[in-house]
């Protein structure tokens, strides 16, 4: 038995929920459903902390937000996409406010804004330091208003069904019962988020396993700019838990083992007592993470049993500010480090945080596969280029979630019935094949082989070594070989859990398969980009090379499973490539 919908959205986080609402508002006759492997309020949007940027102050301008984003992205951003983004962000954020999002306020009742990394003007809206939590819950609760939105909660999508370059639906497993169903649809929007769990130390939740990226890649949707992996400069050492950039925006300092604000040595400005926009601790994330590595090489970081760290000092901000503007930071430090940031410094280090790369889309969220769309961290439009500025990703969910929803709705409405309906005989047959494959090859495996956790942690170690903050041809080649080896070992790894009811080991195996595919695209793209730009830094090619590489890396999967990379140029409209200048 299969079910069918007009628009099917995979992923129920910020982008997915916004897209669903956009579809219904564009055309209430459409039948729309969200399928998510977790309940929507568990989606990783919930852990975003610092804020969401949009121009609202009179002394700010759309062009300046665009310039900050483009220069922050080291000129790899498509400027037409950025222009659309900065234009629509304020409207989307106001819409969230109208829907009840509890944005923090000025005394006069207007929405408050705070400074953020890489931004020349103060334009980051915030809800204390739980912005993502409030944004997600507001979106989710508002989505409940629309009875037209159906949901498949805790269903795991294993395959995108594509026929003749046109998407037909998905195959998904219902976790609670283990049944495997084909869900056909006229259009599919991927909103499955990023893939931080490919690396060992990450701010990301367990669920960030790159599912949508792998699904699209296997179905013929190319991935773009996969080599650009963002390290957030301030994660806690053991858990990788995020300490928001807002802590630095409010005036926090990064100190090495001598108590020295070391960022001044890395062309990021001179230290002032208070925070200065686009300078020092408010520089862009890639540069700050790179500075950490250099400090570590000079032996000026602090050694802990969990590796090297530096100190984030918030003590001078005072208890009142910390308790009002950074309460979650304090809670997290107390719970997970036994440290009170009011009195002690916080040990931090760069950890993987965000994926600039992803499923390649145009500025409407459409992929080259007909009927397939993507929005949010899973997608690469690209507005973030080689490095994302903090507080740009939450508005991205809203702007492109809405765009993809509208585009999908228009696509479906513009079609006639019959020939273009989702449920074709071929699609249903593909669905059956997938069900048999899962039952035979995955569930039907014998025990006694390797553990999934072993393969997973070897992948993560290899990626940290080969695709970290600084890369070299040699290390990347070793990593690529290791990933090949792990791909070969995975099919015989044990799945001891033979139950059909809520089998999380099965899901872990499927997620690991996704992650290995994605990891290979990251390394392959990185090997082929022979320059350093933004978050992709190579010891063997230390300079930015606009002549050869002012272009996106577009990686396609060949029929035999190998990959080929093409270089479509970046769209430049009004901001010709320049030097990224911070602190001057």
């Amino acid at each position, binding site marked *: 038995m299969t079910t069918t919908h007009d628009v099917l959205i995979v992923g129920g986080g910020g982008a997915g929920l916004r897209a669903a609402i956009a579809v219904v508002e564009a055309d209430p006759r459409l039948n729309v459903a969200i399928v998510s492997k977790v309940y929507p309020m568990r989606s990783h949007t919930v852990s975003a902390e610092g804020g969401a940027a949009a121009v609202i102050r009179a002394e700010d301008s759309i062009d300046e937000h665009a310039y900050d984003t483009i220069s922050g992205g080291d000129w790899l951003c498509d400027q037409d996409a950025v222009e659309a983004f900065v234009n629509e962000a304020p409207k989307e954020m106001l819409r969230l406010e109208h829907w009840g999002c509890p944005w923090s306020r000025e005394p006069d009742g207007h929405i408050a804004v705070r400074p953020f990394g890489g931004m020349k003007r103060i334009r980051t809206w915030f809800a204390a330091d739980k912005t993502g939590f409030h944004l997600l819950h507001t979106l989710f609760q508002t989505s409940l208003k629309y009875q037209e939105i159906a949901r498949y909660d805790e269903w795991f999508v294993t395959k995108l069904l594509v026929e003749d370059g046109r998407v037909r639906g998905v195959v998904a497993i219902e976790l609670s019962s283990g049944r495997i169903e084909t869900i056909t649809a006229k259009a599919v929007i991927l909103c499955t988020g990023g893939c931080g769990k490919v690396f060992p130390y990450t701010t990301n939740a367990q669920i960030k396993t790159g599912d949508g990226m792998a699904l699209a890649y296997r179905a013929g949707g190319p991935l773009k700019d996969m080599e650009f992996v963002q390290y957030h400069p301030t994660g806690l050492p053991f858990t990788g838990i995020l300490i928001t950039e807002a802590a630095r925006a409010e005036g926090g300092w990064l100190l090495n083992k001598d108590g020295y604000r070391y960022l001044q040595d890395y062309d990021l400005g001179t230290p002032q007592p208070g925070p200065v926009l686009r300078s020092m601790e408010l520089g862009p994330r890639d540069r700050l993470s790179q500075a950490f590595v250099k400090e570590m090489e000079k032996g000026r970081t602090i050694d802990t049993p969990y590796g090297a760290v530096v100190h984030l000092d918030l003590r001078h901000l005072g208890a009142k500010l910390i308790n009002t503007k950074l309460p979650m930071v304090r809670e997290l430090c107390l719970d997970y480090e036994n440290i009170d940031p009011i009195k002690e410094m916080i040990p931090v280090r760069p950890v993987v945080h965000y994926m600039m790369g992803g499923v390649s889309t145009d500025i409407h969220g459409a992929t080259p596969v007909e009927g397939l769309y993507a929005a949010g961290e899973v997608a690469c439009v690209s507005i973030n280029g080689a490095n994302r500025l903090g507080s740009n990703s939450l508005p991205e969910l809203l702007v492109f979630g809405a765009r993809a929803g509208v585009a999908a709705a228009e696509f479906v409405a513009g079609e006639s019935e019959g020939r273009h309906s989702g449920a074709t005989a071929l699609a249903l047959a593909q669905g059956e094949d997938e*069900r048999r494959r899962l039952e035979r090859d995955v569930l039907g495996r014998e025990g006694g082989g390797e553990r999934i956790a072993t393969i997973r942690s070897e992948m993560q170690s290899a990626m940290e070594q080969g695709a970290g903050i600084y890369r070299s041809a040699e290390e990347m080649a070793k990593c690529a070989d290791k990933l090949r080896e792990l791909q070969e070992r995975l099919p015989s790894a044990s799945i001891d859990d033979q139950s059909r009811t809520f089998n999380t080991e099965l899901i872990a195996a499927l997620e690991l398969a996704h992650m290995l595919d994605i990891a290979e695209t990251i390394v392959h793209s990185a090997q082929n980009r022979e320059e350093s730009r933004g978050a992709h830094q190579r010891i063997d090619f230390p300079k930015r090379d606009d002549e050869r590489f002012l272009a996106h890396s577009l990686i396609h999967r060949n029929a035999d499973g190998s990959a080929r990379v093409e270089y479509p140029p970046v769209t430049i409209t009004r901001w010709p490539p320049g030097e990224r200048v911070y602190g001057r």
Partner: protein
Amino acid sequence: MTNATQARPYRAHMPLGWWLRRRSYMLFVAREVSSVFVAWFVVYLLLLVWAVSRGPDAYQRFLDWSANPIVLVVNIVALLFVLLHAVTWFRLAPQAMVVKVRGRRVPSVLVAAAHFGAWAVVSAVVAWIVLG
């Protein structure tokens, strides 16, 4: 359709002695039971008033009856439960009442203190009337 299992969720029964499991549940049940004793005191007060209204002999008989050990024990136990009732009520009151003075919320401890204070004043007045 696949041959997946039908999900058969397990529903645990709440045992009859569920309230014995935790100190907070036992306190809660005691608090709820205390309303029975509040009702008893109301009845006792009505009996007292009725006895008084029928004259000094009836009143004396009532006092003799009250001095009976069983009635005495019941009244002592009832007093303890009524005290429990009052104390728990006043301590929980601030959670139901949000009082704001000039835009700022009055701290819970003050709201509770006000309740206890009022109780003390009323008790003092009643004691003065009855004993004084």
